């Protein structure tokens, strides 16, 4: 079984699905001969031709809007937006058109597309290359929002996303792109959208996170005393949210810390906290903690690690929640 990085897992999965379904096409800025700025689509144009791996004009709204048309016209487009900060120009097409088409036509017209977007901080990137806007899109009815953080999950979730009959945003945490390898089976397998993963089981406290912070959380767990038993949940899908897995865990532990890179206010941590108090009110031993980015713009990279929820801050949040 090959050992793959996240980038390689996504690349080989795209190739697998393109070979399996000739309606699948990739489009975006520099995705062709250059293989994308992160090389996620490397070699695919050579393999599948420039009709199926298409270098588009430099226009995110154009990419998203024409991808919507491609989907309506019977294709399974996979547009790439080069960085999450450039979703802004595509926002209108994504939110006001892709997300609404099925329901506003009462099912007559659908938009099965998967938009791939590198996301998050921690790689010393320039301005607007390090944000975490997942809550904005989770707040948009009609979209599904996915953020895998391991090569194995990336494959199973990407296949589910491409085959999903509705529009999916597939966020790829840049910080994890090449940070480690793991075994990824060659064969076709899917992981259902909307299923969280329990990364480690525990009884004392629940930590809910997704994307690159999963690894910062694992670092924090390593630093905690041996007798502290932490249940770590990787959401993997932001919407639909796997409420059941969170609720089941918090009913068991009575304590929860939510960790995310995005700003705190109205972030997914707020939604998860609200759901926990709705579903687990009588089980709670402590207020739900949020260890998140701040309500500031993402600083330039000299200070990015002071903004991101790094291991020491996560550890402190867990300790405080346990001590409450």
């Amino acid at each position: 079984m090959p050992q793959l990085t996240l980038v390689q897992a996504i690349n080989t999965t795209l190739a697998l699905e393109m070979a399996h379904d000739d309606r699948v096409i990739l489009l975006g800025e520099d995705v062709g001969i250059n293989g994308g700025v992160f090389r996620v689509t490397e070699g695919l144009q050579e393999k599948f031709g420039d009709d199926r791996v298409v270098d588009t004009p430099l226009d995110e709204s154009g990419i998203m809007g024409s991808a919507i048309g491609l989907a309506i016209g019977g294709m399974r487009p996979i547009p790439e937006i080069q960085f999450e900060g450039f979703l802004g120009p595509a926002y209108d097409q994504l939110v006001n058109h892709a997300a609404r088409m099925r329901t506003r036509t009462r099912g007559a017209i659908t938009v099965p597309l998967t938009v791939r977007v590198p996301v998050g901080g921690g790689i010393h990137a320039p301005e607007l290359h390090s944000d975490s806007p997942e809550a904005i899109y989770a707040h948009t009815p009609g979209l599904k929002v996915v953020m895998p953080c391991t090569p194995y999950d990336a494959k199973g979730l990407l296949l589910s996303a491409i085959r999903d009959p509705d529009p999916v945003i597939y966020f790829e945490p840049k910080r994890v792109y090449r940070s480690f390898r793991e075994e990824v089976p060659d064969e076709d397998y899917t992981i259902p959208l909307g299923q969280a993963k329990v990364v480690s089981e525990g009884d004392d406290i629940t930590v809910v996170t997704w994307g690159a912070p999963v690894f910062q959380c694992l670092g924090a767990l390593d630093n905690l005393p041996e007798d502290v038993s932490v249940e770590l949940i990787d959401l993997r899908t932001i919407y639909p949210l796997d409420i059941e897995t969170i609720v089941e865990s918090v009913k068991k532990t009575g304590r929860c810390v939510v960790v995310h890179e995005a700003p705190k206010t109205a972030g997914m941590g707020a939604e998860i906290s609200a759901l926990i108090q709705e579903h687990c009110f009588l089980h709670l031993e402590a207020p739900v903690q949020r260890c998140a980015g701040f309500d500031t713009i993402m600083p330039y990279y000299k200070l990015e690690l002071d903004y991101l929820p790094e291991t020491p801050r996560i550890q402190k949040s867990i300790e405080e929640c346990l001590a409450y």
Partner: protein
Amino acid sequence: MPKKVVYSANIEHMQILDEDGTLDTKLAKGTLTDEQVVYLYEQITTCRQFDEIAFKLQRSGRMGTYPQNKGQEANAVGAGLALRKGHDWIVPCYRENAALFMHGLPMHYILLHWMGDERGNQIPEQCNQTPIAIPIGTHMLHAAGIAWACKLRGEDRVVATFFGDGATSEGDFHAAMNFASVMQAPVVFYCQNNQWAISTPREVQMNSETVAQKALAYGMPTIQIDGNDIFATYKATRDAAGLARKGGGPTFIEAVTYRLGDHTTADDARRYRDQGEVDAWQSKDPLIRIRKYMENKGLWSDKQQTELEERAVRIVDEVAKTALEIEKPVPADFFNDMYAELPTDLLRQRETMRTTSIGIDPEQAGLRSQPQQA
């Protein structure tokens, strides 16, 4: 070294049937048959009646805001006839009712849309149409994408998209023009330049002499036509669609026309435009010139006119009746098509929308035990 001209272009204007009903027989050759002229006249008349009834429905409180098509219908019918029903695509704005009807959309769907009912957008399978686009200038990208898909799939289809002069200021207009041209997608970009974007006149909207010249920047064939002339609207669309079908890529059509009514029923155009201007355009109404043409050719009599008007009233009354009598949608409808398969929490929200404010566990919320306590 002397400077040299690296690019130059002209914009042609085409008119075939003038406002006196006189036909340029040379340009008209091979375009509309007498039978088709009569057919398009009937379509415009019916659509005009539809506008009248829609206006009355709004004024009597039985329908929400409605944008009248009045004065511009030569565009929808000419283009509609040039496109192949059930085969080519129409990606409309909201002043192309006649084209949608000619391509099979049940007429009451448009009323349902403006009555606040999504079922008016539930395009029947045999119609290659997208629903009315409310935001300005964003749907042309969908046309570019659909046409691109048709090209990739080797389908012999053309996609016509309609929009106004104001829409050409939007960024997505330029994105659509660029994408369609770069991909050589089979699109007909049909701009109904009706002179006004709500209260903003064309000369405030843009500083270019024509709208048509905007296509030059995208290396796209472009033409300006008289948009109140069914021969010109038909021929321009037919030629553009023919070129697209042969792999010639997109074409831009600027159809010079006029919005005789208000922007919508929520608008009062008297606030910003002179009656003199409106009066001058009244005489260019496509219905007037077609009737003159038909009468000159002996194709039309007063008796036929009376019969047509009566028929249009009957058709539209029936359409309005259908729209008014349809049962009210149920609230579950706005959940049901959010996704192909509804997420668990959305199902929960649908089930509990009328029963509990918490929407989770009635027992835990103490609601279930209340009757016993009382």
